[in-house]
C-alpha cells in the first residue's frame, strides 16, 4: 500500500446491499479502481473495524461512498464518523440519495412496524412479547442495540453530502465516471447528481412511439397486459415514471420491458418527484367529468407508494403525519 494513493471507503446503511454489489459489478474495471486507490474501509468485503476508522486522521480519506438511508442510530453515527474522516462524501444509490424503497416505511411508524414484525405476522412466535430495546440488562450486563427510528432519512438529512450517485443500483458507467472524475479532480459543482440532467424519456428508445397527444383511458398494471416491447408504456396505459425521472440509468428496466419506477430521482428543476409525476400523469388522464375522474383515479392501487417509490423521505412532506400524543 502506498500512502500517495487516494484513500477510499465504502459503507452500507439502510439498503438491500445492491449498491455494494454495484461496485463488484464493475467487473474487470474494478481492478483499475483498486490499482488507483487504497480501500481503507469496506465492512462488507474487508476486515476493518470501527476502531480502525476512528484511528485515522480526520479528512484523511479522499472519498467515502455511503449507500443506504438513515433508519437507525448506528447509521447516523457512522455517517458522522465517515464525514469527519473524509474529504468527499458521495451518497451512493437511491436509498442514500432519496431514502429509497426502505423509505416507504415512512408511511408507518416504529410502533406499527414493530407490531407487525414482532407480534402479528403468522410466522412469529414471541410469547414473551419481546421487542428490540436500545438498552437492556441481561445477567447484570447492559446490552445495547442501535435505536430504530420512526422516520427513514436520506443521507443528506444527517450529514453534508458532496455528490449523489443515483439509481437502484447506480449504473456501472455512472460509478466509473464518478471515480474517474474524482481521481482526475474534474468534479462538477458540489451537490451535483452525477448523471445527466435530462429525463428518462429523453434517452428512451420508445419515445418515438409516443403519440402526438398522449392520453390514458384505462390504467393497467404490468401483469394485467401483454406489454408491447417497443411502445411507450404510458401509451399502453401502464404507469411509467420516466417523464419525472432523471436519465442516465441505461434504461435497464425499459429494455427488460418494464416501466420506469423512478429510482434515479427527479431532475435538478424538480423538488418533489412524486408530485411532479402526479401532475403530469393526471393531466393525460382521459376523463372529463368528476365521476369519471374519481373512477379512473380509484383504479390506481397505492398512488403515493407508486409515485414516491424511491423518494418518500426526500419528498416535501417526508412521511405520513405522526399522531401526536398529548
Amino acid at each position, binding site marked *: 500500500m502506498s500512502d500517495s494513493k487516494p484513500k477510499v471507503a465504502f459503507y452500507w446503511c439502510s439498503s438491500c446491499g445492491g449498491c455494494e454489489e454495484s461496485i463488484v459489478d464493475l467487473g474487470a474495471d474494478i481492478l483499475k479502481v483498486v490499482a488507483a486507490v487504497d480501500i481503507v474501509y469496506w465492512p462488507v468485503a474487508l476486515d476493518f473495524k470501527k476502531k480502525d476508522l476512528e484511528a485515522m486522521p480526520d479528512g484523511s480519506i479522499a472519498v467515502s461512498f455511503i449507500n443506504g438511508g438513515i433508519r437507525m442510530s448506528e447509521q447516523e453515527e457512522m455517517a458522522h464518523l465517515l464525514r469527519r474522516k473524509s474529504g468527499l462524501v458521495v451518497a451512493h444509490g437511491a436509498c442514500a440519495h432519496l431514502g429509497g424503497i426502505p423509505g416507504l416505511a415512512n408511511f408507518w411508524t416504529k410502533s406499527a412496524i414493530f407490531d407487525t414484525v414482532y407480534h402479528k405476522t403468522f410466522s412469529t412466535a414471541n410469547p414473551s412479547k419481546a421487542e428490540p430495546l436500545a438498552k437492556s440488562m441481561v445477567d447484570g450486563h447492559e446490552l445495547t442495540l442501535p435505536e430504530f427510528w420512526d422516520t427513514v432519512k436520506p443521507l443528506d438529512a444527517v450529514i453534508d453530502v458532496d455528490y449523489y450517485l443515483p439509481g437502484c443500483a447506480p449504473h456501472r458507467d455512472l460509478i466509473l465516471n464518478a471515480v474517474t472524475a474524482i481521481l482526475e479532480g474534474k468534479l462538477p459543482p458540489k451537490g451535483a447528481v452525477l448523471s445527466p440532467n435530462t429525463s428518462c424519456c429523453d434517452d428512451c428508445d420508445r419515445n418515438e412511439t409516443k403519440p402526438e397527444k398522449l392520453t390514458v383511458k384505462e390504467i393497467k398494471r404490468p401483469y394485467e397486459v401483454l406489454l408491447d416491447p417497443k411502445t411507450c408504456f404510458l401509451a399502453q396505459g401502464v404507469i411509467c415514471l420516466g417523464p419525472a425521472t432523471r436519465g442516465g440509468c441505461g434504461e435497464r428496466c425499459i429494455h427488460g420491458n418494464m416501466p420506469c419506477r423512478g429510482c434515479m430521482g427527479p431532475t435538478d428543476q424538480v423538488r418533489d418527484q412524486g408530485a*411532479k409525476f402526479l401532475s403530469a*400523469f*393526471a393531466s393525460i388522464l382521459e376523463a372529463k367529468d368528476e365521476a369519471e375522474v374519481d373512477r379512473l*383515479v380509484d383504479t390506481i392501487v397505492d398512488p403515493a*407508494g407508486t409515485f414516491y417509490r424511491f423518494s418518500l423521505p426526500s419528498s*416535501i412532506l417526508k412521511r*405520513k403525519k405522526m399522531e401526536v400524543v398529548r
Partner: protein
Amino acid sequence: MNSSSFEPRLVGFLCTWCSYTGADLAGTARMTYPPNVRIIRVMCSGRVDPQFVLKAFEEGADGVLISGCHLGDCHYQEGNYKALRRHRLLARVLEQYGIEKERFRLEWVSASEGVKFQKVCDEFTERIRALGPLNHNGHGGAAHE
C-alpha cells in the same frame, strides 16, 4: 391548543379570470367572510403544481383551496379539467400522508359569484376549525424523530 383559540391557516390558489375576480367582487360588494384564506392569484387553476400544495402543508397550512372557472368556462379551454384530475389524485395521495381529504378543497367560482366565494370561505374555515390544526412534520407544535 383548544379549538376555540385555533384560527385555521388556509391557502387559496385562485385563478385570475374567474375565482380571483369573484373574490374581488365579494370584497367590493363588502360581503363579510372569515379572513383565514390567504389568497394567491395564479393565471389558471391548471397552473397549480401539486408541489405548491405540498409546500403549503409542509410550511404549516391547515387547509388548501384551489378555485377556478366552472368546467367548460376555462380561459385556456381545459386548465380546470387538469386541476380537477390533479386534485382528485393528489387528495388520495394526501390521505396516505395522513392528511384528511377535507383539508384539500377544489371549488368552481365564476367572476360573478362573489356570494359563492363568501360561502366557500365560510364553510372551509369552519370545517378546518372543527378538524383542528394539521401540524404536519411537527410544524406549529410537536417535533418528531
